[in-house]
């Protein structure tokens, strides 16, 4: 070809110039662990299900959620949401109201009748579960999904365990509980009620079970020695709350004293108020700050007119009078008696001092170790006796529904591995997506949605649910407050901000790829990624 004067080369594209060779560091896409997921005792992939909820795909959000937790409607109501305490958005304005979105998804699933998938194939193995509480139901669900045949033996007349006998209706309506339990039963789980297991090994042998998961909970009320007259009416919190679920409603009288400082004490006092007590007084030996109960529950109790006597112990119980003693905290924060006495009038005293585990079914099981009234388990949730696993309140841990559900899942995965002669190895955890790794400038400012509360008069006189749910618009808004910490949500920032067009967009849902032929390693994509899903790594030369 004839070229113009002084032109000797053909024109070409700069694509011939591979600027990738300039690079000393390379950007790499990665998923980091969002703090909410990290904090969840049930191991939920919260960021994962919020991602689907953000686009209004509630069905997929729910399906992602129930991969780890079969009872979102219950959990969204009763979980103390450690996820929200960990939420990075809390450092921006307020944490995402994760529990409210979870509850919305759970309620949506009940309303629309979404069901769990049936297992792809049956394993032919049989697993016995003792106790139909949160831990037992969770284990049953996960084992069933893995194809095992599951039978639950429940000592009580109803399912739910402490979700029914420990959590009052005004926090967890029973139709919600029933719906979520029924959905597990519908997977083909057999539940035998009023079927107390007296000896675990005998029951396993008789039923031909290959493994067992023990989750009997902690239902025995702890007692305290209080000198009392013969006419004193002293009850314990467990039987009061249990009585609410059966025919015998507890007779508490007009003035009720509750002794203890945990969430159960508050539940009993608030229940007493709803049963018509004019006064419900919580007596606790330490201060409000030292109370093990959650502060928001104390706040709700105060709103409902529950009275509190801090720094007080009960010395003696009479028929209608109780002698109490003032306490004071010593330097170590421990309460010490002052000798200062006082009398309070009341018709009954309810002890809410914690619960013990009924371990009688484990008598004469070889290898089993019991310490401080609970059963020792190894990292795989197995007791000292091979094939016998345990979880929930009967093993050493925090006693919450969420922890119990987490135990159920973990035990199920370990039982599944054990039945196949293997050991369950959880996938390695991603590194934590901490706040400093985010670029929060990109997120729209938005305070959290507030859940409606039942008006105070109805809270004092009925067992209607205190806290309402979010509607669809609010739930969507709330889900979209998620920062998607550490996980790409396809905002296209990396694709847009690269001065070298070295980011390849793969299309909706497919995320992105780097074109290392041209990437100069400037790192703008890392700085401008809102959610911290890119990292610079040194080039190996």
């Amino acid at each position: 070809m004839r070229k113009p004067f002084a032109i000797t080369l053909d024109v070409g594209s700069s694509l011939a110039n591979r600027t990738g060779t300039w690079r000393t560091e390379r950007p790499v896409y990665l998923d980091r662990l969002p703090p909410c997921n990290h904090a969840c005792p049930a191991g939920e992939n919260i960021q994962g299900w919020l991602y689907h909820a953000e686009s209004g795909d509630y069905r997929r959000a729910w399906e992602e959620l129930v991969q780890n937790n079969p009872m979102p409607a219950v959990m969204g109501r009763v979980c103390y949401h450690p996820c929200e305490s960990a939420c990075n958005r809390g450092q921006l304005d307020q944490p995402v109201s994760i529990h409210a979105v979870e509850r919305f998804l759970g309620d949506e699933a009940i309303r629309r009748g979404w069901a769990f998938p049936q297992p792809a194939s049956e394993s032919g193995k049989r697993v016995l579960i003792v106790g139909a509480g949160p831990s037992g139901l969770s284990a049953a669900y996960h084992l069933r999904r893995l194809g095992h045949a599951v039978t639950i033996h429940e000592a009580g007349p109803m399912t739910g365990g402490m979700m029914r006998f420990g959590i009052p209706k005004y926090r967890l309506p029973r139709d919600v509980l029933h719906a979520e339990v029924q959905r597990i039963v519908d997977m083909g789980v057999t539940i035998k009620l009023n079927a107390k297991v007296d000896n675990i090994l005998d029951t396993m042998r008789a039923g031909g079970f290959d493994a067992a998961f023990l989750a009997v909970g902690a239902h025995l009320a702890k007692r305290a020695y209080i000198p009392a007259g013969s006419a004193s009416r002293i009850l314990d919190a467990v039987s009061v709350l249990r009585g609410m679920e059966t025919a015998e409603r507890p007779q508490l009288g007009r003035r009720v004293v509750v002794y203890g400082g945990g969430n159960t004490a508050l539940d009993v006092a608030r229940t007493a108020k709803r049963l018509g007590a004019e006064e419900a007084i919580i007596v606790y030996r330490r201060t409000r700050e030292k109370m093990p109960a959650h502060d928001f529950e104390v706040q709700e109790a105060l709103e409902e007119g529950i009275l509190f006597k801090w720094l007080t112990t009960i010395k003696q119980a009479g028929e209608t009078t109780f002698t109490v003693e003032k306490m004071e905290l010593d330097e170590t924060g421990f309460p010490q008696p002052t000798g200062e006495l006082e009398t309070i009038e009341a018709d009954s005293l309810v002890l809410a001092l914690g619960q013990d585990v009924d371990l009688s079914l484990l008598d004469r099981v070889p290898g089993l170790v019991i310490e401080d009234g609970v059963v020792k388990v190894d990292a795989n949730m197995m007791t000292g006796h091979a094939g016998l696993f345990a979880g929930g309140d009967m093993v050493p841990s925090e006693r919450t529904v969420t922890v119990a559900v987490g135990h159920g899942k973990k035990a199920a995965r370990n039982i599944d591995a054990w039945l196949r002669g293997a050991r369950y190895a959880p996938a390695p955890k991603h590194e934590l997506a901490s706040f400093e790794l985010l670029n929060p400038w990109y997120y729209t400012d938005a305070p959290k949605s507030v859940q409606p509360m039942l008006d105070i008069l109805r809270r004092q006189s009925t067992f209607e649910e205190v806290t309402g749910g979010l509607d669809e618009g609010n739930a969507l808004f709330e889900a979209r407050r998620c920062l998607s910490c550490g996980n790409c949500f396809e905002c296209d920032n990396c694709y847009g901000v690269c001065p070298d067009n070295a980011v390849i967009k793969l299309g909706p849902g497919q995320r992105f790829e780097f074109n290392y032929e041209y990437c100069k390693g400037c790192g703008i994509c890392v700085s401008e990624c809102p959610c911290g899903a890119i990292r610079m790594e040194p080039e190996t030369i």
Partner: protein
Amino acid sequence: MTTQPVKFYQTGTFTVGNRLLDESQRSVQANMERTNSLNSGHRACQGCGEALGARYAIDAAMRAAGNQLVAANATGCLEVFSTPYPETSWQVPWIHSLFGNAAAVASGIAAANRVKGRKGVQVIAQGGDGGTTDIGFGCLSGMFERNDDVLYICYDNEAYMNTGVQRSSATPPAARTATTPAVGKRPGNVAGTGKNLPLIAMAHGIPYVATASVANLHDLEAKVTRAMGISGARYIHIHVPCPLGWGSAPADTIKVARMAVESGLFPLIEAEHGEVVDRAKIRHRVPVDEYLKLQRRFAHLFRPERDTERLAMIQAVADRNIARFGLM
């Protein structure tokens, strides 16, 4: 229960794209079919703000013009790094002549279009701050004054970067460059005077003048698109950080640009026929220190001790911009 009718899309239009928004509300840059007018393989430094700004602007212009576009380019970084003989990074018809005549060349192309009766081909001239505010200023002023049908885009990186960071008339007060060293009683560039080209362009009474920043993509694209829909002389001044000349980290290019906007030092405005018609509000206001500290060209304002007098003077510039253009 009260419902919240708030439209809320997580990151709204702050990010380049957003899967929750309708396609039409996402940026041109989010589109898989964008023209990539300035292609890969160009020789701009790591983290070059100008390369980014040029692709943002020309991609948006290409979409607005239905790919019927000719660009004239002044000498400068943009020209040098994109077209070392015989390679070119441009995927648009592109012409380079001299340092100071980009506006005149573009005027000529527009005139040729008119004479030949060729309709629908739009003309863009582009250059750096040197080619625009110094060397090409006469040609540019003439193009404005004659109201030639050209969109002139200036990528302002505030000095002659290509030749080794010499000052230009767009270099900010107190900045260190190769020709304004940080020595003596008044270190760095001259303070108190300067040449504000967007305001000078407005003084010509041309149909459209705007400022934009690589830190605000949606705003930049909207302005380019707007300008492409107007005939006559138009001017857009885009703030593009230069990691090499400013002494900022390549990864911080957009952050630096964002701090310039958020501090009020670089106001984002739109003007028609000499009058300001719109401004982008500052979202989270920051003191000018947040902008200056990211750049080594201003290091002498903080070391060995704080130059409170000059910092107060620069802050006053930002405060005046905020008051003058109503940025808060």
